[in-house]
């Protein structure tokens, strides 16, 4: 299936490993991504905090560019981008709001029969994988299972909220990432803070906000026995990984030392894709000791299976 792909700005900077692994995984799952030509920033939280019309116009330009690809829908790895693009389309179903946004654009958005804007719908890459590719197809592609790696899944706020716009998974207890991780052979631990905010971009004006919120998320993850955290959001990832030492200091805990993966990195790993498609070297908290453990568990499992086969052979 062909998708108009919106990478989002952080893919060029702080979340380059997410960008690279997303493309590799989509390719492995036969998803045909066509990058939207000359896309602009969706405006993120600053735009919708200041003006819905401004936010709508920044998103609308992207959605009009997206239509040129000939794809049926837009997908983005970033929950904030996909939420903004979705929200713009949702709000612009109202002809009055469409008119306000059109005033800011070089050319007005195309209209549908009801007078609202005729724009492509946007989904998160996660939603496209779960709903269009399907968990069974993901599972069938696994060549290196994760050997019971104990993870908690952290979704953040925007993948499933606000529910009436996101229309994906459960707003407070989503399970899509859990199902993907289980398909990869990981053990997904129950986790009460799946959608509890990490502090978003508030770290720039005040490091204490993500420091204490993310500190609590990491502390709880550790307490339930997680070996790693799995995320799907560049901003959450930054707060949990790049700011992990800061979060420990601010929340008065000792350093958690919890590797934080993008789910696409673990997909690439389990699919046996080349290391350069995962960019694990980009993670702030060193994931290699943990991945060595996974490899050791695999070796032990395979050896045990071989022994069992030999024993069965000897017995017969």
């Amino acid at each position, binding site marked *: 299936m062909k998708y108009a792909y919106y990478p989002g*700005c*952080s893919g*060029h*900077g*702080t979340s*380059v490993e997410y960008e690279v692994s997303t493309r590799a995984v989509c390719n492995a799952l036969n998803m045909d991504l066509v990058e939207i030509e*000359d*896309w*602009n*920033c969706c*405006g*993120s*939280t*600053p*735009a*919708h*905090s*200041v*003006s819905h*019309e*401004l936010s709508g*116009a*920044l998103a609308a*330009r992207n959605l009009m560019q997206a239509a040129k690809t000939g794809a049926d829908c837009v997908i983005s790895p970033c929950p904030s981008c996909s939420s903004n693009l979705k929200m713009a389309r949702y709000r612009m179903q109202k002809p009055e709001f469409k008119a306000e946004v059109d*005033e*800011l*654009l*070089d050319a007005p958005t195309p209209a549908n029969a009801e007078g609202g804007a005729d724009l492509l719908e946007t989904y998160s890459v996660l939603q496209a994988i779960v709903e269009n590719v399907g968990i069974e197809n993901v599972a069938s592609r696994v060549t290196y299972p994760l050997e019971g790696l104990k993870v908690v899944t952290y979704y953040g*706020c*925007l993948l499933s*909220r*606000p*529910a*009436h716009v996101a229309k994906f998974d459960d*707003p*407070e207890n989503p399970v899509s990432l859990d199902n993907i991780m289980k398909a990869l052979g990981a053990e997904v631990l129950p986790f009460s803070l799946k*959608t*509890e*905010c990490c*502090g*978003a*971009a*508030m*770290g*720039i*004006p*005040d*490091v*204490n*906000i993500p420091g*204490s*919120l993310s500190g609590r998320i990491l502390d709880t993850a550790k307490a339930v026995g997680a070996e790693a955290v799995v995320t799907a959001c560049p901003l959450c990832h930054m707060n949990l990984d*790049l*700011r992990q*030492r*800061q979060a420990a200091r601010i929340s008065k805990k000792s350093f958690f030392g919890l590797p934080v993966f993008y789910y696409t990195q673990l997909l690439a790993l389990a699919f046996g894709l080349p290391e350069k498609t995962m960019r694990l*070297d*980009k*993670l*702030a908290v060193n994931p290699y000791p943990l991945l060595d453990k996974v490899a050791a568990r695999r070796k032990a499992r395979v050896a045990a299976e071989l022994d069992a086969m030999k024993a069965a052979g000897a017995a017969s």
Partner: protein
Amino acid sequence: MNITRLDKARDLKFKRQVEEESGQNLSACYQCGKCTAGCPGAQFYDRQVSQIMRAVQMGLKEEALKNRSLWLCLSCSTCSARCPNNIDVAAVMETLRMMARREGWVQDRPIESFWKAFLDTVHATGRSYELGVMADYMGRTLRGWGNLEIAPMALMKNKMPFIPSVIHGREEVARIFKRYAEKRS
């Protein structure tokens, strides 16, 4: 304790305006407090969400608009997800923030400056650019030093490129901002 004379301070036009702009029925709020109970920002707020909702219901404009909470709201929508009366509380918070800004009552300059720095970067290049946003914000406010703590790791991992990505259509994006500024003035 603050005493408010409702016969004098009440501004019911304000309540109607909030309802109209947010598209939410504020009368549906029966003050159960679930929004406040689940709010991850509550510990940082100077006025709780449920108190702000009550202030709007009572038509107490200043109480509803003059608080830092409107800026500290993380837009996570947990309040909206949990409201038993289906009020999109986060949308009300956003509406109030915009109204407060129009009144000139910005209660948290650093956060407002961060948003401004972010949007200025998008205005200039068509995309956001992390290092540029940081530099703009710090230059503007002389704050944000706490972020230098993560700078060595970000630079070592080459996660903050020095060269911004500038799009071909940046003039087109700049025109969006220009028209927005003109429309507002």
